[in-house]
């Protein structure tokens, strides 16, 4: 059940986070010459506000409104038979056909890679995208699958008992990234 977390150190404040998101948006534009084919897909929960922010920045840079989808990966998790009770399923919403689109999956933290694996499986059920790329705010290492991000906000060395908390103004009231320590 809820684990006790203690703040170890702050990794980014609002200003730094904003700069990082601006840079990520720039990299996404650079990688995707044809923005008309791009579809941002936020992974619930904190991938969604990240995707929204990236969309805002892309609009500011290029004047193009990129469509945004929301993906809940719960039904594709590989640990459903070992955890109980069942995690809460939230709605998935993909605004248009993903065929012929390049998808930019967005998530706050890249860790074991299992969430991204589940997201890839989920996306395949919506069709055959032209390509799938991955943008994450923080890459904290410890991968258990051969998965890596195309656009990374910051790479952080972490220990197993540490947790990264990415907070957004729209969902948490403030932009902040903290390194937390698990006490148990």
């Amino acid at each position, binding site marked *: 059940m809820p684990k006790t977390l203690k703040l170890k150190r702050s990794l980014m404040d609002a200003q730094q986070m904003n700069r990082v998101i601006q840079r990520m948006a720039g990299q996404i534009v650079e990688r995707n010459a044809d923005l008309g084919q791009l579809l941002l897909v936020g992974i619930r929960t904190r991938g969604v506000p990240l995707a929204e922010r990236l969309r805002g920045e892309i609009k500011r840079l290029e004047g193009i409104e990129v469509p945004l989808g929301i993906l809940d990966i719960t*039904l594709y998790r590989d*640990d*459903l038979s*070992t955890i*109980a*009770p*069942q995690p809460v*399923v939230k*709605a998935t919403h993909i605004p248009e056909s993903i065929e012929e689109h390049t998808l930019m999956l967005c998530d706050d933290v890249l860790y074991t890679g299992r969430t991204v694996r589940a997201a890839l499986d989920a996306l*395949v059920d919506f069709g055959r995208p032209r390509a799938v790329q991955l943008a994450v705010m923080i890459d904290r290492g410890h991968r258990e699958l051969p998965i890596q991000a195309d656009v990374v906000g910051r790479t952080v060395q972490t220990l197993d008992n540490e947790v990264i908390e990415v907070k957004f103004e729209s969902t948490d009231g403030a932009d902040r990234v903290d390194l937390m320590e698990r006490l148990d």
Partner: protein
Amino acid sequence: MVAELRWQRKDLLGIAELTPGEIQLILDTAESFREVAERPIKKVPTLRGKTVLNLFFESSTRTRSSFELAEKRLSADSLNFSTSGSSLSKGESLIDTALTLQAMAPDLIVIRHMHPGVPHMLARRLEAGVINAGDGAHEHPTQALLDAFTIVQHKGRIEGLKIAIVGDIEHSRVVRSNVLLLSKMGAEVTVAGPRTMMPVAVETLGARAAYSLEDAIRGVDVVMMLRVQLERQSKLLFPSIREYFNLFGLTRERLKLAKRNAIVMHPGPMNRGVEISSDVADGTTSVILEQVANGVAVRMAVLYLLSGAGAEEGE
């Protein structure tokens, strides 16, 4: 962050034991599953490797198909038993049947039985989660849940709504589960039917009783018509089909008594010209076919929630 309610029960036996929070959790989960039916590939891998037995001691086409479709969309392996031509009709005792099923190590059992309480008895005996798909005139929880889901879709809520249920109140498990659910969620429910079809202590259901259709549907948000079980006609609960239609059939004229945007529901299969006229059944206010589509989403939600209950406590 607000702690989210998690599902803890092994079985879904009736609405009676559910809290409003649990009902809301099932409805919210169903909302997420509804989207799966709109995908090009209408299947998720969630229950891969899980086995579901569909055990129908009473014939049923729509409920069984709805469960089966829900199981398939979740990638579960499903196995159907029905009474005709199986040991279920060869005199085996229910306990022996249950133990035989247990030996097949299913994860979930969906059961319909003509006697009330059979799912409850199996739930106590079996490790598998048990879903009541109708036990006699007792409960039919997934029907009530899909009805509630459909109401929320159209009205945005259940609390404060006025809802009329009309037909054979005494012999209907759909009514029992619906009245329990709707009143738990804060609706004001009226049941109506011919006196021969109203239970003796009708108030104990938790609904207001009315003895005419007009009285029941005046000013309501939802009209739920029940099927007249023509196969029970031998019991002579009413003189003729025509008389039933004249007194309790929902016609366009009578529907005007309800609120202007009232929706019309029916659990199916419906008898046109008996409890409902064709123009109402096919009218713009009818949500009868949506109920069928929603049934699959609600059953997916129930299967999903129950399938996690047996596992070890995780993070």
